[in-house]
């Protein structure tokens, strides 16, 4: 056996990255008694951890010796073993995040999460991004996930920290965004006692997450982290909660990250049934007036390429929903633009006349279908979705296909050809030409649609993050999206305040892209505090406020359906957003005239050492058209102009 000196042991230790090595020093004194001392080195962090005495026993069993055979009793022998790491729950958690490839974690600190924040303090692989409000943290994690397709991670303390995350979790849930939200919980012994800052987070979030874990022991952490990420990013994606008690964060244990995750009760069906796909292909072949209707699921499944192929192979007209914008280029002649309440007349008329609707990763949302009784009355329906509960929920379906959009479309593409539907295509072209999105210039006002058109002109390559309201609809209508993951918005929950923090997440995830935030005056002020981390990190966000001094979307409904009784929507008491931006430390500009729109946009282009806020003072009472009033059929769309 070889003689190994302490120095050599250390050398070996440093050759193995990320491993924890224990060094056992045995010394025998003259009387023959063995004195053992054990030290542990966690190589990755170069931190010497004290082993837990109770673990000594179990280590000994696994020891393999490089022992100096010795007759002399006073020679010290160095023994080492490679052991599974013994770390605190918090460090295991962080280690797990690294294994999952997490780059950023967005959080706000607090008592019950302090050990986790402490573990992140000197961490370089997983970068902690302190936000100013937990809602901002969850939206930032969400924006990161939407822009990159990776799992976003948010972190908050117990009680109020956790409840502040809730809006962001629900937002991600409604749009099936992969996210892991980690919350500190009070000590296990206090759970259920109404302890200080205790809140049943698992209970509160039960209906708004894909799954949740309450972790009461550090022994569960490694498995829970692996499962949580697996659940978040597979099947129908969504947020998963890890609520971890403070004592479980602190306690140390030997652990092993699982190599694979196998949850016996969770086996999402990713491949479509070939017989169903064949039936779909047959229907597509027969149809005289078919249309494709693609949603956010196509983006989530990274199936835009396959969708393009299907559209081009078949030459069937396509409408892409608010959640799916960019899945198919809106600039293509076959594109009918988005359907629904504020969608294009063309897409809505197409639904009304189609004899076949092929839904792909879209869910027949009520904002798309209008009155279900009048929705696509002549059409057979094919519905491709990863989530079987989504199929047949709102609309009866003729050919359901459960599976991942990418897989199903790949198979479907093998079975379809150019459709022989010229008269229908001509009809679509006619509608398209006759009813484009349009608006009227009022006097010398800055028209909100004009601002969006100009933003598109100068930032067509950007990732656009919109908030909720009229400005969101105008952005969707007048910006032409050509690539997936370049349009981020809270379509399902419609969460005001989403966009600024989401833009932060998107910019961190895509540092080489320009990120444009199209915000409303009402929405912006809901999470305005997140300007602070954006400035601190010098993120070159372009924050464009479409400022109509109103909760415009609600005002529009009041104008049309409540006799102009403008209850609680008048925001003329808004602060000066340009000055406010400057007070925060960002560049702030104010635009009040149409001729200043372009120069301001160009100026913003040149400022890249931090966020630029442009406050566009637009026409106050402009409405979004076309509009299908709630409860009406898509054919009853109000086109708006005379």
């Amino acid at each position, binding site marked *: 056996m070889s003689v190994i000196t302490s120095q050599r042991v250390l050398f070996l230790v440093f050759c193995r990255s990320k491993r924890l090595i224990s060094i056992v020093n045995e010394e025998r004194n003259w009387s023959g008694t063995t004195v053992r001392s054990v030290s542990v080195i966690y190589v990755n962090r170069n931190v010497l951890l004290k082993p837990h005495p109770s673990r000594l026993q179990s280590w000994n069993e696994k020891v393999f010796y490089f022992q100096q055979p010795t007759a002399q009793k006073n020679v010290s022998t160095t023994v080492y073993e490679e052991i599974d790491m013994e770390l605190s729950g918090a460090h295991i958690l962080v280690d797990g995040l690294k294994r999952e490839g997490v780059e950023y974690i967005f959080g706000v600190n607090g008592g019950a999460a302090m050990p986790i924040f402490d573990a992140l303090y000197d961490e370089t692989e997983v970068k902690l991004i302190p936000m100013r409000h937990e809602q901002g943290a969850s939206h930032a994690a969400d924006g990161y996930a939407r822009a990159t397709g990776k799992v976003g991670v948010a972190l908050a303390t117990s009680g109020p920290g956790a409840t502040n995350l809730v809006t962001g979790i629900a937002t991600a849930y409604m749009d099936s965004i992969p996210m892991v939200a980690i919350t500190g919980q009070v000590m296990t012994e206090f759970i259920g006692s109404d302890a200080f800052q205790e809140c049943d987070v*698992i209970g509160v979030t*039960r209906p708004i997450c894909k*799954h949740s874990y309450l972790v009461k022991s550090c022994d569960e952490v490694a498995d829970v982290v692996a499962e949580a990420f697996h659940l978040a990013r597979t099947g129908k994606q969504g947020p998963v909660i890890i609520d971890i008690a403070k004592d479980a964060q602190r306690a140390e244990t030997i652990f092993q990250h699982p190599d694979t995750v196998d949850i*016996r*009760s969770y086996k999402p069906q990713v491949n479509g049934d070939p017989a169903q796909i064949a039936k779909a292909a047959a229907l597509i072949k027969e149809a005289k007036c078919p249309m494709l209707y693609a949603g956010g699921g196509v983006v989530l499944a990274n199936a835009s390429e396959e969708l393009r192929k299907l559209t081009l192979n078949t030459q069937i007209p396509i409408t892409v929903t608010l959640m799916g914008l960019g899945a198919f280029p809106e600039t293509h002649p076959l594109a009918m633009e988005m359907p629904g309440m504020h969608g294009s007349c063309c897409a809505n008329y197409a639904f009304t006349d189609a004899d076949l609707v092929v839904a792909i990763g879209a869910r027949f949302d009520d904002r798309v279908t209008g009155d279900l009784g009048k929705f696509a009355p002549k059409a057979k329906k094919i519905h491709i979705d990863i989530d079987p*509960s989504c199929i*047949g929920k709102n609309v*009866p379906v003729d050919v359901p296909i459960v599976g991942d959009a990418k897989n199903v479309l790949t198979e479907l593409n093998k079975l379809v050809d150019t459709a022989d539907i010229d008269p229908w295509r001509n009809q679509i072209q006619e509608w398209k030409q006759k009813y484009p999105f349009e608006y009227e210039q009022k006097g010398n006002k800055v028209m909100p649609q004009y601002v969006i058109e100009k933003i598109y002109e100068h930032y067509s390559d950007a990732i656009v993050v919109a908030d909720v309201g009229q400005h969101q609809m105008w952005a969707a209508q007048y910006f032409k999206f050509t690539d997936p993951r370049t349009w981020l918005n809270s379509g399902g929950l419609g969460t005001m305040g989403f966009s600024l923090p989401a833009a932060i997440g998107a910019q961190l995830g895509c540092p080489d892209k320009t990120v444009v935030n199209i915000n409303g005056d009402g929405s912006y002020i809901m999470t305005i505090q997140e300007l602070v981390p954006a400035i601190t990190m010098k993120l070159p966000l372009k924050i464009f406020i479409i400022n109509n001094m109103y909760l415009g979307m609600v005002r529009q409904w009041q104008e049309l359906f409540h006799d102009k009784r403008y209850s609680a929507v008048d925001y003329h008491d808004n602060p000066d957003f340009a000055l406010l931006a400057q007070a925060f430390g960002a560049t702030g500009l104010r635009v009040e005239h149409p001729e200043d729109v372009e120069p301001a946009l160009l100026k913003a282009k040149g400022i890249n050492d931090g966020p630029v806020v442009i406050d566009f003072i637009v026409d106050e009472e402009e409405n979004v058209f076309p509009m299908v009033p709630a409860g009406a059929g898509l054919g009853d769309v109000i086109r708006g102009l005379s």
Partner: protein
Amino acid sequence: MSKEERHIFSVMVENRFGVLARVAGLFSGRGFNIDSLNVAETHDKSVSQITLVTHGDAQIIDQIYQHLNRLIDVIEVTDLTTGTHVERELLLLKISTEDPRKRAEILQVAEVYRARVIDTKPSSLVLEITGDEGKLEAAIEIFNTYGILELARTGKIAMMRGGTN
């Protein structure tokens, strides 16, 4: 609207805390009905079985099935009503015997329902009856004429006939 039907679901779930809340929350959150619910461990300690009676039209029943399946802790969902199945319920009745002359009569009726007497006191006795819903309803009706002091009912448990399901 197609017509409403009663369905019995057998739901195999992970035997963990919080699972029942997820199942129950799904029903309350989505406005589905629960007529009865029964939960117990199975021979495999890691699995619990929930027997759930619900009603709704075909579309609702399909949604219930799909949403149950969507819960991560749900291992398997079977709609027992789609095949031939057996169902049973257990009923405990405490009946007043203040009037000693009625005691013999009560015991005779109990015989008809194959009820077992599992406790007797001078002024009351406790009967155990198993059966399907119809039988239990009938028993309750008749025993009520003697004065039911207390009633406890399990809700249904059920399984498919034959095969391995």
